[in-house]
């Protein structure tokens, strides 16, 4: 089946697009062997630095290691600055609305009463946390760190169009790869950065720390922030340690924390020390054995109590999963209009909700053309990519779907845009996506770009690292050379003042 394709670097007449021309000129001058040597160098450095990714349940041939490198591709994914400006405005808008939605769900539930989002889909959602009802959280912000997955696909005119594929509002990961990929590119090819005006991303940890500190209980001049990790065997442990180190804060595990008189402390070599803000990378269920799963040892008993007492901030807040669930995703455009009175800037992918009889019927009739996803699934597990699936796989999925229609949504198979990528046979187009990381504190801000993931297998649309995906450095580029005399645009995004006011509810 031939579907229209959109390549980030080449147009349909195989001409290099304007924003890639500078890079292409440089690439054409590089000897193949030199590039091969750089690939090997990159791999060696990543391994030595220990930028690895643990895969659950996996063992290598010796049965020893479960650590894998995430393949890093040398060819950057380049986005022209004007496209990014629109995307950024859309991200600020979307995340602002999502935070308003979570606040609403746990307070007055206006949007449910207005009938815009079906109440039972929210209140009976496994991610809905009754414990959060009526709780005042700092700044009324729930999702402080949001990873919004964006893909690009050709429209009827063959132009690339950006779509939001998924919102990740619980503990989105990958930002460390964004930072390390840039560091690696600058180390391998410093001359490229001298020639091209690439917006910097290295200040992300500063913005993150600023965001976290803004959530501290009032009246603290030096709030103490910690990063809470499930431990070194978690797949994203590298990132937890990396972010803690980059922010200069302590990396803690559940066993390091305890609650006394509604205050959270760490156990230190010099006795207990108070904690004000917890950037947690542990799922809701495991955060507090007294409130959630009693057998969890990853959290801290009494954490919810301290949180309710307002003595500690938890980022992201508990219960954000109610807004990033795939069954809620179709309603995000309505949320934007409902809370902000604005037209959505970023598009959603059309979505069939199998809980609805008509959509289910359509989905079952078109399984071969659709991507079907588990509502609560993540990491590329539990999904069916119709065009790539065998008849047996489709039949199996049909059974699963019929057994529990409400557990699934379906979307047309987007022909994700491609980007030239090094593969064994040379350079070939591979499908990519993008995950920008949006920070919501006193303001909504982000560093330009995000993490570009690439599906390394020919034709594959699955970019998840747990499924063998790789990453690329992402450049937001002022491509117009006529503009290169102008001063460089400020890397930090300014937010819409009105939106901000709406978000923090009048707190100046």
């Amino acid at each position, binding site marked *: 089946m031939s579907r229209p394709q959109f390549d980030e670097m080449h147009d349909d007449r195989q001409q290099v697009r304007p924003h890639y021309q500078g890079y292409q000129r440089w690439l054409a001058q590089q000897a193949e062997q030199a590039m091969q040597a750089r690939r090997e160098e990159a791999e060696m450095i990543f*391994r*030595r*630095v*220990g930028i690895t990714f643990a895969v659950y349940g996996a063992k290598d041939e010796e049965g*020893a290691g479960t650590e894998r490198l995430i393949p890093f591709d040398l060819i950057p994914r380049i986005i022209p600055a004007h496209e990014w400006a629109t995307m950024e405005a859309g991200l600020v808008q979307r995340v602002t609305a999502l935070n308003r939605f979570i606040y609403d769900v746990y307070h007055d539930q206006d949007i449910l009463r207005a009938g815009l989002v079906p109440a039972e889909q929210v209140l009976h959602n496994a991610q809905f946390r009754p414990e959060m009802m009526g709780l005042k959280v700092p700044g009324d912000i729930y999702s402080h760190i949001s990873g919004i997955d964006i893909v690009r696909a050709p429209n009827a005119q063959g132009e690339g169009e950006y779509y939001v594929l998924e919102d990740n509002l619980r503990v989105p990961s990958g930002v460390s790869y964004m930072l390390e990929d840039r560091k690696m590119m600058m180390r391998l090819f410093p001359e490229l950065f001298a020639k091209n005006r690439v917006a910097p991303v290295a200040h992300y940890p500063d913005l993150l720390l600023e965001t976290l500190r803004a959530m501290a209980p009032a009246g603290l001049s030096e709030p103490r922030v910690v990063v809470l990790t499930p*431990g*070194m065997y978690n797949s994203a*442990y590298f990132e937890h*340690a*990396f972010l*803690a*180190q980059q922010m200069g804060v*302590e*990396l*803690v*595990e559940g*066993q*390091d924390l305890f609650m006394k008189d509604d205050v959270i402390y*760490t*156990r*230190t*070599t*010099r006795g207990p020390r108070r904690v004000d803000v917890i950037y947690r990378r542990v799922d809701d269920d495991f955060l507090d054995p007294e409130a959630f799963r009693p057998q969890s040892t990853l959290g801290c008993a009494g954490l919810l109590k301290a949180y309710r007492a307002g003595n500690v901030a938890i980022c992201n807040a508990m219960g954000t999963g109610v807004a990033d669930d795939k069954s809620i995703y179709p309603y995000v455009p309505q949320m934007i209009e409902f809370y902000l009175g604005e037209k959505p800037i970023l598009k959603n992918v059309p979505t069939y909700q199998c809980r609805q009889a008509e959509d289910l019927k359509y989905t079952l009739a078109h399984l071969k053309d659709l991507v079907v996803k588990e509502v609560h699934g993540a990491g590329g597990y539990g999904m069916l990519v119709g065009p790539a699936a065998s008849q047996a796989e489709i039949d199996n999925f049909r059974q699963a779907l019929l057994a529990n229609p409400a557990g699934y949504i379906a979307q047309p198979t987007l022909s994700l845009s491609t980007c030239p990528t090094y593969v064994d046979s040379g350079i070939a187009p591979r499908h990519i996506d993008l995950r920008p990381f949006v920070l919501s504190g006193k303001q909504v801000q982000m560093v330009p770009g995000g993490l570009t993931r690439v599906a390394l297998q020919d034709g594959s649309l699955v970019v998840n690292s747990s499924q063998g995906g790789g990453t690329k450095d992402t450049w937001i580029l002022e491509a117009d050379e006529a503009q290169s005399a102008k001063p460089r645009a400020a890397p930090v995004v300014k937010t819409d003042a009105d939106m901000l006011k709406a978000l923090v509810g009048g707190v100046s």
Partner: protein
Amino acid sequence: MLSRTADHLFWMSRYTERAENTARMLDVNYQTSLLPQSADATLAGWQGLLSISELTPFYAAKHGQEVAPRAVMDFMVRDEQNPSSIISCLRAARENARAVRGTLTTEVWETQNQTYLEVVRMLQGGALERDPGSFFEWVKFRSHLSRGVTVGTMLQDEALNFLRLGTFLERADNTARLIDVKFHTAESEFVGVDSEKDQDFDFYHWSAILRSVSAFEVYRKVYRDVIRPERVAELLILRADMPRSLLGCMNEVMSNLSLLTSRPDSECKRQAGKLRSDLEFARIDEILATGLHAFLTQFLDRVNDIGAHISREFLLPA
């Protein structure tokens, strides 16, 4: 600092030091076995090595009663089930480092990480079979590098003190075990036998011990004399300026503990201080008169107690 962090740092450096000392002992045994000597003496060397690490029963369970040099070497280098093997120690050091990599400088972490990745690669590539001597040398130098990069890049705060504490407490333990086993062999076979041939053996035996703690040139410089057992013992136990001696190690343990706590009721500091003083004011003839083995056994017990008190006071309760 988090108690758990301190715990990982302490054990990271203990395991690194242990790997180094295991390599030292294996190296000396290997070098000695190349010399012409009785089969019994060679065997005693390898048996001693197992008993130093209290591994004789575990070895026997895996390999039977026969102590074969090849098997002992494999057991002590690459057996992942043996917690004291070089590969196990380097892995444990690296895993402890990984757990607190945010507390370490990038260079310290990369050193630990690379050491482990490299040792796996070397062992798979047959480096031990090809040239055991250079393999042990490599392990030693990775440990030197690990200490150097620690002292050379880490902020001089608690984290460094816990790292140093681990290094010297482990070294005190390891040196004491080495002296014990080597003198034990000596008492039964070498000392007091007065024949030309045995004097040669004596020379090789004692110089091997000195070399295993890099003290051969030091001995010559300090004593300017032929190698005598009681002086070897004195150098390795009581010389404060000898970096691997028991007193040298206890001095470092004390100075790091003093930086970590100023509490007058600190039990680990009291015990470490007492042990240090006992060494400082001891004389080698006294120790030999009352029995070296008894002295060292007691020393090891006391080091063990100090370790337990450090855990209780600063680290995670076991």
